[in-house]
């Protein structure tokens, strides 16, 4: 039996000042200390912090990642293993969570960087991060990363963008771990226990319940499209298995910055909605066996191997059912259909989660691939839906390139400050792990 207790500490406010602590639901952040932590990285020159609260007339853009601060209180290892803590296996004991808030990394990595979080207005309905108090950090690249050619129009040297991406990704995780650490000795407002029996125990405990596995597909196509598991770039892995609670301790982190609406930020991995919903049914209607992680590479032989392995693991576990979720557009549709088809052909019933690109008029074919065996599909909605985002009083990050973010089109930033765009510019709007209520028919 693998058991993890999550202790939720509800955060009602974040105050940036000269001391770091969590007290009476308020997170106090010592600006100088966090800044020093971020600037340990030689590739970052400066960082600006800000707080965005639900209901405010604030827009955060471009968003890179969103992370929920957590800390191990009991049990082996530390959060985000292999990234900011040792690779030791996590997923048991006690973990405290700063609930109701998130660390948001913002800033331009590439010129077409995307991701909008509106804290109020119509856009706020589409992003889950309009409901969290956001500790936003905008990181500036070190001079060593800047283009040296005086003629260059690039702020960052093209060759050095991978370093900058890595630096910003790590800065976000470090700060989230630092803030989480402040809650290590705080008594949680609420606790929730998640227990997964091993295969043998599960069979004995629930002999009559259908056994269900969760197949999580991770985005792994290359720079800005990567996901890390215990610090390993997941594109160089075979499909494998995890305890669901490992994910809750941050074993999977996002390095994916492209396609804001359907990328899975680290926050959504930590709070993986499928894992939580399966736990709710565990022992009642189903026996939740565990998580299979598999990747979404560009190389077709990799796709074949990974989907073969995902299906093979389902077969080996002898499960009755599987939930499959994906991340991204186009290329991953092929992995999704391959996985679903192969798993169904093993006699395992599937339900899958995706989103759609059906065009602004909703009339185009939604997915790049299809198969009649994929007969139980949940959709996160049509990413091409057009939305008008009103001007916000405050912008954290920068707006100059909204014209070129995905789904925005020439002239999408109007003179009056409103943005006409597709909901694909909004962070996690059509999340393909089923985090939201948005759907389509």
């Amino acid at each position: 039996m693998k058991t993890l207790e999550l202790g939720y500490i509800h955060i009602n406010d974040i105050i940036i000042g000269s001391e770091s602590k969590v007290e009476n639901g308020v997170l106090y952040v010592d600006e100088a200390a966090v800044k020093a932590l971020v600037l340990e990285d030689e590739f970052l020159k400066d960082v600006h912090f800000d707080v965005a609260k639900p209901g405010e007339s604030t827009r955060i853009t471009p968003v890179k990642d969103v992370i929920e601060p957590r800390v191990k209180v009991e049990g082996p290892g530390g959060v985000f293993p292999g990234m900011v803590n040792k690779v030791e296996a996590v997923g048991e004991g006690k973990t405290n969570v700063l609930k109701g808030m998130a660390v948001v990394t913002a800033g331009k990595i590439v010129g077409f960087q995307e991701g909008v979080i509106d804290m109020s207005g119509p856009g706020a309905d589409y992003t889950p991060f309009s409901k969290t108090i956001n500790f936003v950090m905008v990181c500036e690249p070190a001079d060593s990363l800047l283009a040296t050619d005086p003629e260059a129009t690039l702020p960052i040297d093209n060759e050095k963008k991978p370093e900058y991406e890595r630096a910003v990704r790590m800065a976000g995780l470090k700060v989230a771990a630092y803030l989480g650490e402040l809650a290590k000795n705080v008594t949680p407002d609420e606790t929730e226990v998640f227990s997964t029996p091993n295969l043998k125990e599960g069979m004995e405990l629930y002999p009559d319940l259908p056994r269900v596995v969760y197949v999580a597909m991770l985005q792994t196509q290359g720079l800005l499209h990567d996901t890390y598991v215990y610090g390993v770039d997941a594109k160089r892995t075979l499909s494998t298995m995890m305890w669901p609670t490992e994910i809750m301790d941050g074993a999977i982190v996002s390095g994916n910055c492209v396609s804001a609406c359907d990328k899975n930020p680290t926050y959504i991995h930590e709070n993986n909605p499928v894992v939580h919903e399966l736990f709710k049914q565990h022992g009642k209607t189903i026996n939740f066996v565990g998580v299979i992680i598999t990747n979404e590479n560009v190389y077709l032989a990799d796709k074949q191997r990974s989907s073969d392995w995902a299906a093979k693991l389902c077969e080996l576990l002898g499960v009755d059912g599987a939930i499959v979720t994906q991340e991204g557009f186009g290329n991953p549709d092929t992995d999704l259909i391959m996985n679903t088809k192969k798993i169904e052909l093993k006699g395992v019933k599937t339900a899958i989660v995706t989103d759609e690109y059906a065009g602004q008029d909703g009339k185009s074919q939604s997915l790049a691939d299809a198969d009649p065996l994929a007969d139980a599909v949940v959709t996160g909605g049509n990413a091409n839906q057009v939305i008008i985002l009103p001007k916000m009083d405050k912008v954290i990050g920068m707006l100059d390139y909204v014209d070129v973010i995905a789904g925005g089109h020439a002239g999408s930033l109007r003179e009056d400050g409103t943005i006409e765009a597709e909901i694909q510019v909004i962070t996690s709007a059509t999340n393909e792990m089923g985090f939201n209520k948005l759907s389509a028919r």
Partner: protein
Amino acid sequence: MDFIIITNNPRVRDEYGAKYCVLYQECSFDEILYAVRDKIHKGHKLLTHPLSGSVKPNETPYKSIMISAERGAMDNDSVILIEDAINMATSGKFEKYRQRQATLNQRILADFQMIDFFLITSGIESAQTGLMV
């Protein structure tokens, strides 16, 4: 696995042209898909996904696709993948991007080249470790 890269990305041409078989042509995103399709009809096998990357078709003007150097009987899976990709890319829903391409500045273009470069690089890494497909 011996491969050919069909690309309209100057960065792929410049960095890999001397090392691998790179067929560069100055053309649109769609035209790269068509070029790959014609090669598949002649018996080359598709090695990387034609819609690799989360950047949408024509949002980026650049596309690099890897096919087998060897020709054999036409591969049905490759035909279906490239046709689905062409249908998706030319369906009209990404039309807005096509119009926008002319307005992209050098900085953005360089970024799109970089993304495509890293996507195909991950394909090359896979091709070099796996000898058979």
